[in-house]
């Protein structure tokens, strides 16, 4: 092997990487928060919601879970303008990540909800709780606690999947790596550095979600 490694470009290009990192973090935060919210709403609709709503949500979930993320992204960015809906690349990327996580999150949260024993609903009712209170305290929070590790993994997967948004010229971390690679022809170094950043980001995100789980479900976390 006589390849001379050269990281000199870092001096010139670190702002590009930093900007890419910021965009990836932004996409993950927005996608994560709204995606989980959408997932919880859909899980409620599929498990406990009104009969007419269930097939609609099921269609959405199955459509998203059975098509590639990249195609969903292209559809939103390149396809929707034909219908008069023109989103910028960041809005399109955010939207795609939210609906993607929403669908996967729905199935994860639904599993948690459906694992709730029927007696727990009845216990809530017998304590004089309203239906909303029962859902919130008796069903949803224990359900979220049960599936929190699975949901955390899904959020990390979506964060890593956000690499695809570079394809619609959203300037995320992958775009930065590609950009640097095409300007410096230092493929190994550019992708090595971006790999390291993704790895650090994934580890940090997982730790953050674990901490969030502890603070959200304090009493039961000593399981």
């Amino acid at each position, binding site marked *: 092997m006589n390849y001379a490694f050269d990281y000199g470009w870092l001096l010139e290009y670190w702002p590009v990487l930093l900007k890419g990192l910021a965009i990836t973090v932004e996409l993950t935060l927005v996608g994560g928060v709204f995606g989980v919210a959408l997932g919880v709403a859909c899980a409620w609709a599929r498990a406990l919601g009104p009969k007419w709503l269930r097939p609609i949500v099921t269609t959405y979930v199955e459509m998203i879970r059975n098509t590639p993320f990249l195609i969903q992204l*292209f559809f939103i*960015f*390149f*396809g929707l*303008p*034909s219908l008069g809906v*023109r989103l*910028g*690349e960041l809005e399109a990327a955010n939207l795609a990540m939210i609906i993607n996580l929403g669908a996967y999150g729905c199935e994860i949260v639904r599993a948690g909800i459906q694992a709730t024993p029927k007696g727990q609903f009845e216990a809530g009712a017998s304590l004089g709780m309203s239906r909303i209170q029962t859902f919130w305290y008796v069903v949803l929070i224990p359900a979220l606690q049960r599936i929190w590790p699975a949901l955390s993994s899904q959020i990390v997967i979506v964060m890593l999947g956000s690499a695809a948004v*570079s*394809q*619609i*010229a959203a300037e995320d971390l992958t*775009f930065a790596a*590609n*950009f640097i690679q*095409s*300007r410096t022809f230092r493929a190994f170094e550019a992708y090595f550095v971006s790999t390291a950043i993704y790895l650090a980001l994934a580890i940090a995100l997982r730790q953050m979600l674990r901490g969030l789980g502890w603070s959200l479900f304090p009493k039961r976390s000593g399981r």
Partner: protein
Amino acid sequence: MNRRTLLSCLAGALTIAAIQAPLPASADALATIEANKVIRIAVPQDFPPFGSVGVDMAPKGYDVDVAKLIADKLGVKLELVPVTSANRIPYLQTNKVDLVISSLGKNAEREKVIDFSIAYAPFFNGVFAPADVAVKEIKDLDGKTIGVTRGAVEDLELTKIAPASVTIKRYEDNNGTISAFLSGQVELIATGNVVAAAILERNPPKRPEIKFLIKNSPCFIGLNKNEPALLEKVNAIITSAKADGALNAISEKWLGAKLPAEL
């Protein structure tokens, strides 16, 4: 060093010298063409719209039509020789063809080994947009968003010359850039005239028209050095084809645009 090694070295040196020496060109290429009643022309086979192979296996394209035009005007039979961009000049130097019409650009290195006719085809990078976009020069891009294929020559040039207020959206490949333009995600694109021609071929609602050039490197016909008669004849044919609209028709047919005035 024994005698055998010495001999083989000598033989090797002679072979190299023979390869290096210019092949003795026939007395006058034009006279040979006219005597044989056939002209051999190198055309591309893998570079649409300049030269490709149609479904009927016949070569077609801008370069092929220009080759036909020249054979017609010379009144001789045309023999097309498909070449790649790597072997088109060697084919000429080894006298396998009389002319190279293969979207050949001119540069100093090539000018050392072959001669060039006057330009016969436009080849440039530029900024394209629909007719109603008022952009005439780089300054007019101020505050606008422009799509480009990441890492392409036009990306590098535009990054250098564009004012800071221009937002450059860099797509992964030409298809991304084309899709962004057609879906209206970007109003302007910087690309090559061949890519613009590929868009026009699909007859889209948005028609990319050239606004200004970024880099111009038109195509020339290549021929061997020291062939003044052939060079003069080829130049005369191109000049008259420019004047009578024949070349413009070829440009409209394959590039979807008029021949630029400066050509």
